[in-house]
C-alpha cells in the first residue's frame, strides 16, 4: 500500500473514532450516514478541495456544500482535523450554547451553507457554480447528497438547471448507501435505475466504491468527467461502514451506541488501525 493511501486510511479510522466519540458524548447523531460518508469527506478535504482555515474567505476557494446535513458529525471530525477549529471543541457538539449544533451552519469555520432540511444543497451549489462561471473564477463546487434525500423533487429541479447551464465546475457526489430512516430506499420510494436517471438529466456520471480511497481520489481528481456537463459521482457505500454490527442496518440511522457497543467499536477500529500500520 502506498504511503499516501495508508495515511488517508488511517485518517478514516481516526475520523470514525471521532464520530463515535462525538455521538456518544452528545447523546445524538447520525451514526450510519456519518460512517458511509466519511471516506468521501476524508478524500475531499485531504486531497481534493483547495480550502484551508487560512483561505476560508478566498473568493477562489473551492466550495463544499453538505446537503445531507444530518451527517454533520463526520464533517466536524474532518474540519477539526484540518484545523478549522480546535479538536477539543468536538466535546461540545449539541451542548447548550455550542456553535457545533446537530446540522452544519456557517457559525462554524469552513462551512459555506446551513443545511439540515433535505433537498436544499444542490440548488445552492448550482448558484455557487453559476457565480464562479460568471466571474471567470477557477473554483469548483462540490456537494454531497444522501440517496434518501433524492426523494425531494428540488434535487431534480436543480439537476435540470445544472445541465441546462452546462456547469462543469459542479461535482455532485451521492452517498448511495441504499438505506433511509424507514428502510431500504428501494422499498421506501424506489430510486433505481438511479445512474440512468442522472445521465438522462444531463450529468456525466461515474460510479465508485465510496470506501475505496484510491478510487475516490482518482475519480474526484478527474472531474469534470466531461467538458460542458455537471459531474455526478455515484458513490456506492455501506451505511454504518467500519463498525460491523452497524453496517447495513437502517436502525443505525440515528442510533447512539451503548457503552458495550462502544467497547466493541473501539476494538474493531483499533484492529483496523493495527492492520494498516502493519501493512
Amino acid at each position, binding site marked *: 500500500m502506498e504511503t499516501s493511501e495508508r495515511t488517508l486510511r488511517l485518517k478514516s479510522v481516526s475520523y470514525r473514532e471521532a464520530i463515535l466519540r462525538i455521538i456518544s458524548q452528545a447523546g445524538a447523531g447520525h451514526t450510519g450516514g456519518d460512517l458511509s460518508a466519511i471516506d468521501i469527506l476524508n478524500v475531499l478535504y485531504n486531497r481534493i478541495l483547495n480550502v484551508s482555515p487560512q483561505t476560508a474567505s478566498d473568493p477562489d476557494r473551492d466550495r463544499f456544500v453538505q446537503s445531507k446535513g444530518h451527517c454533520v458529525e463526520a464533517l466536524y471530525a474532518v474540519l477539526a482535523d484540518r484545523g478549522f477549529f480546535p479538536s477539543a471543541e468536538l466535546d461540545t457538539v449539541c451542548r447548550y450554547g455550542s456553535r457545533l449544533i446537530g446540522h452544519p451552519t456557517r457559525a462554524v469555520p469552513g462551512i459555506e451553507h446551513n443545511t439540515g432540511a433535505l433537498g*436544499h444543497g444542490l440548488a*445552492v451549489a448550482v448558484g*455557487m457554480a453559476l*457565480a464562479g462561471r460568471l466571474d471567470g473564477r477557477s473554483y469548483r463546487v462540490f456537494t454531497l447528497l444522501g440517496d434518501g434525500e433524492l426523494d425531494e423533487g*428540488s434535487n431534480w429541479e436543480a439537476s435540470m*438547471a445544472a445541465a441546462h447551464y452546462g456547469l462543469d465546475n459542479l461535482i455532485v457526489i451521492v452517498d448511495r448507501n441504499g438505506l433511509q430512516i424507514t428502510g431500504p430506499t428501494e422499498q421506501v420510494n424506489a430510486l433505481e435505475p438511479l445512474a440512468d436517471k442522472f445521465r438522462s438529466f444531463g450529468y456525466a456520471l461515474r460510479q465508485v466504491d465510496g470506501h475505496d480511497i484510491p478510487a475516490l481520489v482518482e475519480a474526484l481528481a478527474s472531474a469534470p468527467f466531461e467538458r460542458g456537463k455537471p459531474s455526478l459521482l455515484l458513490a456506492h457505500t455501506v451505511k454504518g461502514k467500519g463498525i460491523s454490527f452497524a453496517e447495513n442496518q437502517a436502525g443505525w440511522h440515528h442510533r447512539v451506541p451503548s457503552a458495550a457497543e462502544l467497547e466493541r467499536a473501539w476494538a474493531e477500529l483499533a484492529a483496523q488501525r493495527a492492520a494498516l500500520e502493519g501493512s
Partner: protein
Amino acid sequence: MAMGKPNLDIFAETLLSLARSDRDVLVVTSDSRGSGRLSGYAQELPEQIIETGIAEQNVIGISAGLASAGKKVFAVSPACFITARALEQIKNDVCYSDHPVRVVGISAGVSYGALGATHHSLHDIAALRAIHNIMIVVPADSLETREAILAAYAAPYPLYIRLGKAPMPDVYPASEPFRLGTCARIRDGHDVTYVACGETVPVALGAAEALAAQGVSCRVLSMHTVKPLDEQALVSAARETGAVISVEEHSAHGGLGEACATVLLRHGLHVPFDLVAIPDEHLVSGSQNEVFRHYGLSVESLAATAMRLIGGR
C-alpha cells in the same frame, strides 16, 4: 389622485439602471420575466438574468448560492408562488444561512383578482414575519418603490419586497427622506390614524381626504417596512390621534394589522382600533378593485370605519 405607473414598472426600470452599472446585479426568475416587466432587461442584459423555468424552489436555492459568492441577487417571481412553494428555501437557504437575497414577490395580494386563490398571496407577510432575518418591504408608490429597490441593492441582508401591478398615484411626500425600517407620514392629522401599506395606501389617503371635508382630521402612515415595524411612529400616532385603523391587502391573520395591534397593546395604548384586511374566508371572485370594495378596502368603507371609531368623541 392622478395615476402614475405600476410599482412593478418602477421596480423594473430601477433594477435595469442599477444592473447597467453593476455587473454583479442579477435577476433570477421562474419563467416570469414578462410578469416582472423584465423582458427589456433580459434583452439588454442577457448575462445578468438567470432563468430557472417554472421552479420556484430552484429560484431561491440558486439565488442563495449566487449571493454567497457576492452576487447582488433579485429573485423575482409571483408572490403567491415564491413565498409558499419556496418558503423553506427562503427560511433556510436565505434567512438562516444569511445570504443576502432580495426576494421580489410580484403581483402580490389579490393583484391577479379573479384568477383565484392559487394566485393570491394573502399569507406572505404572515409567513415571513415569523421567519428570522428578513426585512419585509411593501412600497406604495413610485417613489417608495424606487427608493426601496435602491436601498435593497445596498443592503447586505435578506429582504422581501412585495409589489403590486396596478397603476399607483404618487403619495409619498417629496420632502420626506425614505429609509428602510421606518414609515412615511404621508398626511398629518389629529383625530385618527390610518396605517396602511402597499396598494391600500391610496385608498386610505382617499378616505382621509373624504373625511377632511367632514371636519375629521386623519393621519396616514405608509408603513412601507412591515418588519421591522416603525414602532415609534405607530405609538406616536396612537397617542397623538387616539384611534388607529390598519389597512392591508393581506389576510387579517398575521399581517400589518396584527403587528400594529401587538405594538399598541404592549405599549399599554388601549385606543379604539380596527383592522381592515382580507377576512379568513373563501374569497369572492372579482378584480382587485372589486375584491377591495367587497371587503371594505374602499374609500367609503374606510371613512365609515373611522367615523365609527371616533363616534364617541
